[in-house]
């Protein structure tokens, strides 16, 4: 069983970091993981994305073409990738930037005003983690305990308070 996740948005929204955190979560759960960023001119001020694979067996292509779960944090990425989600897959959309569209019977869509939630809760810059929290809850991809341990791993030493902030963001995401 391989879960393929695509995370996309603007550069600066923490897209790549959210993917890394998710990879660590998989690693801590004893899974095979891979993380592949988009790179090149597109990342300079434009949109960026990363592919994350979490699997029970060695991962073939690390490039996610048809995600089981999609997180999008801006309108261009939503337009670009929403159609690529697998049938029965889930799309998590930051409604602070993307207006609600007609439903799509193929997939489940979740609208979370993550950027507003982050601002209102004093977690500026953590909309990405709020989105991740929602995604983990709805997909059951990992335990919150694994997320906490992953946050401890990925947050630089000396910024321990950020672990707690990350966990709050995860919980806010899960609760919305």
């Amino acid at each position: 069983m391989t879960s393929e996740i695509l995370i996309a948005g603007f550069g600066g929204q923490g897209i790549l970091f959210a993917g890394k955190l998710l990879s660590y979560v998989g690693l801590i759960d004893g899974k095979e993981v891979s993380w592949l960023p988009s790179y090149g001119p597109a990342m300079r001020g434009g949109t960026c994305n990363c592919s994350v694979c979490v699997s029970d067996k060695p991962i073939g292509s690390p490039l996610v073409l048809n995600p089981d779960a999609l997180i999008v944090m801006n309108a261009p990425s939503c337009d670009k990738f929403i159609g690529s989600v697998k049938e029965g897959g889930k799309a998590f959309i930051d409604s602070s930037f993307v207006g609600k569209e007609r439903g799509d019977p193929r997939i489940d869509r979740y609208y979370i005003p993550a950027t507003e939630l982050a601002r209102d809760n004093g977690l500026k810059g953590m909309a990405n983690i709020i989105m991740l929290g929602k995604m983990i809850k709805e997909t059951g991809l990992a335990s919150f305990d694994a997320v906490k341990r992953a946050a401890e791993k990925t947050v630089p030493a000396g910024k321990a308070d950020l672990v707690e902030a990350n966990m709050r963001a995860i919980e806010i995401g899960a609760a919305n």
Partner: protein
Amino acid sequence: MKGNEALAEAAVRAGCRHYFGYPITPQNEIAAYMSKRLPKIGGVFIQAESEISAINMVYGCAAAGTRCMTSSSSPGISLKTEGISYLAGADLPCVIVNVQRGGPGLGSIQPSQADYWQATRALGHGDLRIPVLAPSTVQEMADMTGKAFDLADEYRAPVMILADGLLGQMMEPVSFPDIGNADEPRAKAVPKKWAAVGHGNSRGKNIINSLYLQPEKLEEKITERFKRYEEIKNKHAGAVSENCDGADIVIAAYGATARIARSAAETAREKGIKAGTFRPLTLYPFPEKELREACKTAKKVLVAEMSMGQMVDDVKLALECKLPVEFFGRTGGFIPGPGEILNKITEVT
């Protein structure tokens, strides 16, 4: 860790303390990593004024008997080929990394495998071969780097690691159990008595050189070198074959494409197609014997590459035209999806 970083750390653990490079995407993480890491452990990092300079710094450093490396991506490797020829001609051990991108010309910065011919046949003028290792995972980016330094020292030859933008940029878990650590890097494989380090008035002088004006001398040198290539072939040609026993079709691919081919073959088996996979670990020497062994029951071979078809030549040569060989490729920076390869498998079986 990113593949590029894993490779750099592995080089450090293999005892490489000297890195010379020039910026080019998608391999910049190697230089960035070395620029942070090496000064802290008494090493040397130099951003050279050009790829040409960088490879010649490697030439000097290797001539002094020191483990060293350079890395670049396709257009930069073209610039280095002059230096690589001199390194081969002077029997100097070093590691050269090519994190391939699309070409020709400036091409693209997306992953590609279009430098196979260059790596296996044309890394410089003259009668020479360069051992080429082809990692397929981030772990292998590390493991093969350790191996490359050992091979280089053992056979006094420049050794290339042929990766691509996908392997360089992606992250996977990696561990370094067999490579050593920074404080106690793996020992040099052989003492380098030939190195130009100053004779200290205690021995005759050493000359590092590739110029032999007498044809007899040059032929003798080259013949001796080709004996070493033959030994590398006998001892170090390698491949991984999976599910090839009883297979009707064998899919041959290296590097990043091999991972995708593996997924495609797995799905094909679920659909009842007897598909095996063959993945060369060394591109020169090409694992000919291993390929013939893997294709014992096969009726067909499918080669998949991120190019218009380059390794497919070596597959045909190794099989001596005894089996039909099909090809599937994407180029220009496209990474083929497992679905595309699966379609081709279905089409040809």
